[in-house]
């Protein structure tokens, strides 16, 4: 595993992502379309520019962030309530 890779966990799923890439990109690339917490996860990244707030995710530490406004810079664990 390259030092440029980080492990992303989304619920029970786990995959590698490149350091510096947009978290929303990493999720979409791994077919995780419904990231958003709103409306029983029946929402996902839409605008990609921090406007629609639909890719809001909750990290294991309780912090909520927008996947489109977050660069992968460490291993990340994302809660999946679905």
């Amino acid at each position, binding site marked *: 595993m390259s030092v440029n890779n980080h492990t992303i966990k989304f619920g029970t799923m786990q995959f590698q992502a490149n350091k*510096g890439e*947009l978290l929303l990109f990493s999720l979409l690339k791994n077919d995780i379309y419904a990231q958003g917490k709103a409306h029983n996860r029946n929402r996902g*990244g839409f605008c990609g520019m921090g406007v629609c707030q*639909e890719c809001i995710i909750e990290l294991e530490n309780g912090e909520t962030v927008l996947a489109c406004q977050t660069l992968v810079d460490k291993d990340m664990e994302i809660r999946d309530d679905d």
Partner: protein
Amino acid sequence: MTKDYDVVIIGAGFAGIKAALTLEKYSLNICVIDEGILPGGQFIRYKKDGINSSKIPTYNKGLELVKQFVSSPVTYLKQSELILINDQKEILVKLNNDSLKMIKPKTIIFATGAREIVQPFKGWDLPGVITTGAMQILLKTSGQTFNDEIIIAGSGILHYVAGATWLEKGGKVTSFYDVNTFPDKFKMLTSALASSDKRADFFAMLPDMLKLQMSAKNGYKVIEAKGDKKLESIILAKVDGNNNVIKGSEFEQKTSLLAIGNGLVANLDVATAAGCETFYDEQIGGLVLKTNQFLETSQKGIFAAGAPSSIGGADKAELEGEISAYSVLLNLGKIDEHIYKELTSVLLTSRKKAVSFGKTLSSMQQFNLDEIKNLPEETTICRCENIKMKEITEAIGLGLTSINSIKKKTRAGMGNCQGKTCSELVRAILKSHGHIDTNHIKTRAPLKPTSIDILASEITFLDGSKV
């Protein structure tokens, strides 16, 4: 003693960066506030250590400006959100370390850019339906595609640019649908060629655009997205010369990803919170700020650059970034009117061309009001609060004629995005019923979702001194 900022620029896109670099030569205290992870706005996706040059000359020019900007002494607050702004030019900003800072500048430039608008259809809120802007951003930031297939649809020019970028990154476009007919596109092409900067961009993108054009179907639009928990297929239909769906032409196509866009609308939440007046003119992109020849808004000492004054793309943003910077210098007494005229005369001529290009863009991005009026009842309008078309038309039926009254009645616009996605749709629905609303949806502090413990924390000036 707190550092006194001469000018605060909101937004580090093309306009904001150009304004900052222009002002920087005049030994002023400049602060740029931007919510992006990296400078450059939505157009220039600057990566500190990545390769992200492009075939498009305007993009590379922007990249150069960003490089100059990051090595300039300008105070740059990245990933920072405006929580509050008032008509006294008092700004409360949340920095990326979650601390709250107060800034009271002498002048402000709003370079807040634009966001994409999508004409709603049934199922447009399903995961897997994204804007062409999102598609572009993801492509530019990562340098690669993120799905095996994609269907691109829309009107105007953005979906073309996004499609060309997808092909440039080695992706495959399953289908490309354009609402606009060929004569519309010809008009767009000639307007693009009339502006010298656009000409170079156009020819750079031409090979990929031609590839797209070969598979493009003109005069089609998406009328429904279907899927259980995410997008599985879309229903398309042919449209006539008036952009109306031809009954019986509907067909279904399977896809897991749809990128769609119908143009741009200016971001004005912060400017209107600061008391700047708006007006509505669909020829220049819908709701924009009232500005005079100096790009000064209705609020003295507050200026607008780029999309907030009218939709017009990167060239216009850059030109107005520079012009607004000179207006700030004039306002602060750093230059006199004679010098001002000398510095801006050529820029103002170029700006006319850019504004004219913007008008062509805007003429192709207008909503189809007949369709808007007759959207299926269960179509989502406010995505955050899950408010349907039925509730909006019922509110209009009760005699409500403004975005703000409909917001109070239905909650449309009260969710996390604060109406940024639905307010322009409600404006269009109102218009389809003959009601013209020329005001921005009312915004309230905090302008961005902010946790209570942050709001309750101590506020200081940027240098740490007490407010």
